[in-house]
């Protein structure tokens, strides 16, 4: 047994890896193979087989912690005394939390609209051009970078050094400003503009996602519709406005709501680039800070619940739109 637990040399580790892979392939293969064997299985067995793991996982990993969080949001910092809605009152009335909520609103409004708009325009512009594949790859690339990685890259882009002899600019944007004869700027310091400089990072990442989905939707528009519109004299902007956009409306809504959900939960960018300082904090970051750094369990839980409540309508809308689309088809 010891041989399987403690691997010290590289060769041993490699051997262990091979053993693990073979084991896994064997087990997975056996399962996938066995699934097809019995021809007549009662429906309830199949239903249970598929549903039980999901229900168990959701119940244990989502419903229970969710209810527990709502419950602890009604208690004080150590979770000992019942305080009613005090934590929610704090979250909505104190200035520092109002700033957090305001920033979250900035994020949720700006990112989905900007990312979708950029993605849509880009998808239309490069559609059926010669360099389409290359152009799409370029915009899609940021999706492959982790949020933290992207944040570190952009932190360097924004880096500030004073414009004085003996000091070299290290930030790309400030170097450009200095070359153009302007003074270098503290991009991440002055609120509320700094929040928008952080938003740029999220848009940079999400535009690729929007572009890919929307481009696929555009390609799915039946040629006869496009042709008929063209025969009726539709061109350029009008074609975009009256044919392209209405035809891909379901895809547009899914893209916007999906990005909005991701944006509501944004945490990595803020934490990596400013640590929530200089009035850039958002709900997810503040909830982590209150729960784990300041250890005010009640307030942290209340912020998590607020985030949860904000996401719900988006999820419902998203699911309904998906269903509508399926019905049409």
């Amino acid at each position, binding site marked *: 047994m010891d041989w399987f637990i403690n*691997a010290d040399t590289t060769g041993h580790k490699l051997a262990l890896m091979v053993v693990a892979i073979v*084991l*896994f*392939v064997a087990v*997975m293969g056996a399962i996938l193979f066995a699934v097809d064997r019995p021809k007549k299985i009662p429906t309830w067995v199949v239903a249970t087989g598929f549903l039980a793991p999901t229900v168990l996982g959701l119940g244990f990993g989502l419903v229970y912690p969710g209810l527990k969080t709502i419950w602890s949001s009604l208690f004080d910092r150590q979770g000992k005394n019942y305080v009613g809605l005090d934590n929610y009152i704090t979250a909505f009335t104190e200035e520092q939390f109002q700033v957090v909520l305001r920033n979250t609103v900035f994020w949720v409004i700006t990112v989905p609209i900007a990312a979708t708009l950029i993605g849509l325009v880009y998808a239309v512009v490069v559609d059926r051009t010669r360099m389409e594949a290359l152009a799409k790859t370029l915009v899609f690339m940021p999706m492959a970078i982790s949020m933290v990685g992207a944040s570190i890259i952009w932190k360097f882009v924004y880096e500030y050094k004073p414009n004085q002899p003996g000091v070299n600019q290290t930030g790309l944007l400030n170097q450009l400003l200095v070359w153009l004869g302007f003074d270098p700027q503290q991009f991440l*310091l002055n609120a509320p503009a700094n929040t928008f400089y952080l938003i740029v990072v999220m848009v940079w990442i999400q535009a690729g996602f929007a572009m890919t989905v929307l481009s696929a939707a555009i390609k799915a528009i039946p040629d006869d519709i496009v042709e008929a519109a063209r025969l009726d004299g539709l061109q350029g902007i009008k074609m975009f406005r009256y044919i392209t956009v209405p035809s891909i409306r379901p895809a547009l809504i899914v893209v916007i709501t999906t990005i909005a959900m991701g944006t509501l939960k944004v945490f990595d960018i803020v934490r990596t680039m400013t640590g929530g300082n*200089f009035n850039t904090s958002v709900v997810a970051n503040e909830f982590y800070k209150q729960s*784990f*750094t300041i250890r005010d369990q009640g307030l942290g839980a209340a912020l998590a619940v607020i985030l949860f409540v904000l996401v719900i309508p988006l999820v419902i809308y998203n699911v309904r739109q998906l269903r509508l689309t399926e019905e049409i088809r």
Partner: protein
Amino acid sequence: MRSMTRRSYAALATGAAFALILAGCSDSGNKSPDASSTGKVDCAAYKQYGDLKGKTVSVYTSIVDPESKQQTDSYIPFETCTGAKIAYEGSREFESQLPVRLSAKTAPDIAYIPQPGFLKSLVADFPDAVKPAPQAVIDNATKYYSEAWVNYGTVDGKLYATPLGANVKSFVWYSPKEFADNGYTIPTTWDELMTLSQTIADSGRIPWCAGIESGTATGWPATDWLEDVVLRTAGPDVYDEWVNHTIPFNDPKIVEALATVGDVLKNPAYVNGGLGDVQSIATAPWNEAGNGIPAGTCSLMRAANFYQANWATDVTVAEKPQDNGVYAFYLPGKTADDKPLLGGGEFVTAFSDRPEVQAFQAYLSSPEWANEKAKVTGQGWISANSGLDASLLQSPIDIMSYKLLTDPAYTFRFDGSDQMPAAVGAGSFWTEMTDWIATDKSDEAVLTAIEKSWPAS
């Protein structure tokens, strides 16, 4: 049959892909130090801990690479002589994760807690999890540590934790060559320090550089500034009252101290050499702020002895004037006889009372360990343990820090923000001091905001 075969291939491929992902996730595992590599160890001093063969003590700390190597190296004699194994785990998320582990009842055997305030709140929140120190540790503590240091590890009259390492924060880094070339002398009073700053400013150069950016902990170097100045303008007694909240955080004496800090940090003629204007202090990374001293864009920076680890590799830390050389002088008090000293340290706290854990606790509070640690550390570590053999320290700054720490002429006080409740010490104190610089918030507004955030209970 064709579809069947294809499905089998798919099954195989999926399985292989999953296995690869899993293999990628698996930890390569930490190798424990090879005990035999240390050669001969005199085990006589370790007899008292008994035979602990086959026992493991888990240690959870905020000390990560490269400093963790010096830690694990210093345990080797203990492991060799007693046969116990120390399972060391360092984490950057230590402060957030330790309470989580305590709530989940998966506590480590021992944790090194850098803040007495954190220790206090852990004892309050998890009274059953934190174990009081055993007799052997109490004996070591009273024998080798000053009363003040013992008190930092004591909660409600019971000793829980003993100091591990110590640091001294009341230092100003400078370039000895610049001082020698310009005929500057080391200031011995606060007024002399201000006169020196003015002299440097008059020569057409910005004297001070400072940076308080530290990711999510941004602002802490500014809290150290204020604490150091409170010790000087208001004195250690007021400092204690302020830290323990028997006077309000925005007491007039503290307002005065913050104004004194502002005379330097918010004075455009004095800051921020090579880094920008006053605001740039908020975005300058604390561990790079001093680079201007060897580069010649600033002259003075207040930072702890542990800043020596942050100098570029081509910078020499020495008192002798030389190119690319830096050194530090004691941040002077009001008068030459007034010598307050600000510092910090970590505290060894146990969450288990198994004999091997208690033995390791006793070892860490003994001079044997302190000396062993000094031997394996190149620079950047001292202890408040009076049994430490100072000749084992290797860096000139460490030697000077240890001298100040053990010199009775200096009045030592522990970092105040580390003793305050987390909502202040790791929360509003940091963020408000950041706002004080970033948005030019007034002294009174900053201190009043922190006072308001002090938890009621």
